[in-house]
């Protein structure tokens, strides 16, 4: 790794991975509803399609279509926590599979998948080069098209958080700083340590920014790069992909891309 790359990885370890490790079960309990465009993308795949969900989190998309095979992956730095966290939830769905992997070092043969999804992942990478590399890692999973100009290859759906979201409660919009730290507040936690009953966990409430803080509240900050209009498409082009469809949905930019065939 180059030095700047190492710094990027270290930064993300501190401001993304270790935060998710601590907020995992709360975060997961608020992330159960599939987003419509992702759901439709997965439902429209031909039966028997094989693909990857890179950054699968709690695995909510693994349950959408049981006639396809998805290998979900996510990363957490401490293995002992992993087995009880998000990945464990993910592996319960049939017939899919879940593994622990880094989105920049995926353990899949190149160009072997019919589809790949990357939902709310790429915006956690902290340098432009690493974001393009992450997009490339997703695109490189796809079967290339059979001929130049043909779009019969594998398809990827990529989702990132948008800078333009003036109607959201965060209120960011064009012109705002794109690299931000976003708070996640865990409220009312009275016990320390990992041992606690299920009842306690249910009583804990997750409140994001804007909440009145109490003594026991703990705020975690996660790093995000907010994408501005057209930026995701540019990253995809730079990573060797071709955008076939793109749009904006509920504070996010999304794009469907194929691998560009280079003869």
């Amino acid at each position, binding site marked *: 790794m180059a030095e700047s790359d*190492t710094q990027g990885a270290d930064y993300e370890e501190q401001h993304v991975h270790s935060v998710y490790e601590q907020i995992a079960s709360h975060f997961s309990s608020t992330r159960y509803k599939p987003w419509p465009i992702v759901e439709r993308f997965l439902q429209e795949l031909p039966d028997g399609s094989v693909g990857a969900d890179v950054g699968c989190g709690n695995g909510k998309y693994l349950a959408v279509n049981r*006639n396809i095979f998805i290998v979900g992956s996510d*990363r957490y730095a401490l293995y002992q926590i992993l087995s009880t966290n998000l990945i464990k939830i993910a592996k319960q769905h049939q017939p899919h599979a879940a593994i622990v992997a880094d989105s920049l*070092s995926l*353990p899949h043969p190149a160009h072997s998948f019919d589809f790949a999804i990357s939902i709310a992942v790429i915006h956690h990478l902290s340098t432009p080069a690493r974001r393009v590399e992450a997009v490339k890692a997703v695109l490189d999973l796809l079967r290339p098209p059979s001929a130049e100009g043909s779009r019969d290859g594998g398809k990827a759906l990529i989702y990132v958080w948008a800078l333009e979201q003036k109607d959201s409660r965060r209120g960011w919009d064009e012109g705002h700083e794109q690299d931000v730290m976003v708070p996640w507040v865990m409220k009312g936690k009275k016990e320390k340590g990992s041992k606690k009953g299920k009842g306690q966990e249910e009583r804990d409430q997750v409140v994001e920014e804007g909440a009145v803080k109490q003594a026991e509240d703990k705020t975690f900050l996660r790093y995000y790069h907010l994408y501005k209009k057209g930026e995701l498409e540019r990253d995809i082009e730079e990573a060797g992909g071709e955008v076939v469809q793109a749009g904006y949905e509920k504070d996010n930019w999304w794009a469907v891309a194929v691998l560009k065939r280079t003869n």
Partner: protein
Amino acid sequence: MKLLTLNFLTCAIKTCKTSPASFPLHPRDCELEVVESESVNLPFLKNILPRLMWDELRVIADELGLPALPSTPPTRDDLVEPSSSSTTTISHAQNAGNAAEGQQQAEEKPSQTARDLHRVLLETCIKEGKLVCGNCGHEYKVMEGVANFLLPGHLV
């Protein structure tokens, strides 16, 4: 981790991916468990068939000490119980279009071959053990059914 997963996994180290020796990963010191699922998903098995790297799956089955897989992969027809498909084909011979096709598929019953394939690919799981790259020798641990492909910093 279902054995089918191994059909889509290789070494996470970039320089290994171009080497044929990195696929498949080799299971070592593995503890297996059979996780029974409700039913055989015949359309799924039929569609996944062309994606299977059969020779490599045979190697994996052998290394895990499982009964040997046949030397050639089954065909789509092999997966259907003969009696179930022939009757439906005749009864729907007059019909045209997707409805007949859908109904025919719904009435097809999985053959013993399909059930065997379902058992080995989707119900046989690696619970604990290691997956080893045949190119660089790196070992990936499987714990509680989840394989960990995170690399130490010097290998990224």
